């Protein structure tokens, strides 16, 4: 068992929970970016602190170029979204 568990593409946008836009839901649930090169993805430190990490990793070389806690990244992102909403 590996200490880290791959949790798929990062940054997939989950539609608004109440949304009935089926195309958006289909895309969220089934369609993936699958680049040969830099890829933003989620890893859980499942054999340790259990936190999810947002990792930028090259799928050709496996070189990791950035790592951040997903929760912090997500909170910063949603704060940004809210901020924008407030301004507009």
């Amino acid at each position, binding site marked *: *068992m*590996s*200490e880290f*568990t*791959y949790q*798929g*593409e990062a940054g997939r946008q989950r539609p608004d929970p109440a949304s009935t836009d*089926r195309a958006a839901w*289909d*895309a969220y*649930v*089934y*369609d*993936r*970016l*699958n*680049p*040969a090169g830099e*890829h933003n*993805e989620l*890893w859980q430190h499942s054999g340790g602190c259990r936190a999810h990490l947002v990792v930028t990793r090259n*799928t*050709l*070389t*496996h070189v990791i170029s950035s790592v951040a806690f997903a929760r912090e990244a997500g909170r910063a992102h949603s704060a940004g979204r809210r901020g924008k909403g407030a301004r507009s």
Partner: protein
Amino acid sequence: MRKAMAEYSPWWPGAPYRLAHRMKRNVPMAEYSALSLLRNALGGNRDWAPAWRKPEPKPTYDVIIVGGGGHGLATAYYLAKEHGITNVAVVEKGYLGSGNVGRNTTIVRSNYLLPDSIRFYEHSLKLWENLSHDLNYNVMFSQRGMLNLAHTPGQADDFIRRGNAMRHEGVDAEWLTPAEIGRMVPGLAIGGSARFPVVGGLMQPRGGTARHDAVAWGYARGADRRGVDIIENCEVTGFLRDGDRITGVMTTRGEIRAGKVGIAVAGSTGHVMKMAGVERLPIESHVLQAFVSESLKPFIHTVVTFGAGHLYISQSDKGGLVFGGDIDGYNTYAQRGNLPVVEEVMSEMVALFPGLARVRLLRSWGGIMDMSMDGSPIITRGPLPGMYLNCGWCYGGFKATPASGWSFAWTIAKDEPHRINAPYTLDRFHRGAVIDEKGQGATPRLH
């Protein structure tokens, strides 16, 4: 010489049939048989011709198949053989068969759970059973049986459900008791102190193994002999389009046009489809490692899988134990994996065969899998006009090679799927009509 013949004399009965067959079809010298082998041996093996030509690409074909792996070559072969479409090019970025057809654990079976899967893979198995004759190339399909070990009563019921599903589709499946398994698979940790005692096993006697490279070479030679151009070292760098319509490919060896372009590049699907402007697909690319031990005298005589983990093992004719386990479980296009999976697979191996701890791992390699969102493949028209897509094979591509090529050729030739590949559309995900053998949903690493 005579003594050697005596030891291997069984090949003689075949020779007359091959000879008669060749005379009837009036094919030239290239026909392989025991007789041609002998004649050439006496001539110092100087007269063997290339197994396939190395043609320059023509400007235009009726069909281009992108991908010179097992599936692409089989597609070209069946286009020519079944549909009379011979003005076909197979373009391959590297050497022929450099993808997963030469990087798998060579298992052939049709022991699936869901009816759509059983029908497709059984069609494939039937093609396998006559493939060496069909191709005039010995792909060494050895129907030594495929045995899934069950370790709990609940798992036994699951396996029997699958066996029954197969039987209701006319496919062979048998249940073996631990005692029968013990006789069939010596060295296996059956019970007693075993942490995961064997409670039984589902056997598909017609399953087995084949020589993986021979499948690529046999299809290549068969397609070539029917006029297909196989163009190696010809990497697709883009698609030619007329509006939405795909009209050909740009390659490192120039532009090539065609009325129809089939994509059969499992492992590189995301990369190639991106060139056609399709960024997102229900696929992730993962690496699956495979392993071979040092060569041993015959040790295991069937294909065996371990139900309390994820392990499948057989022995090649050369004597190496060929085995594998889970995918590494992350997106990658690098044909290499990492240590945790190596250790997991070896741990399961010695749990199953405690005597093998002293045997040594000789080689490991990785192949890139198109892991789809339900664990089943996609063989379909589209998603763009003029394009046909064959991908999403997960672990299961090798055994599917004949049926994949056969049904993809049908789809390309007739512009509609055959009954056996009709369920394997792209839009099944959106419709919720998934074919989910493992019941894991849209998490590719779990399939």
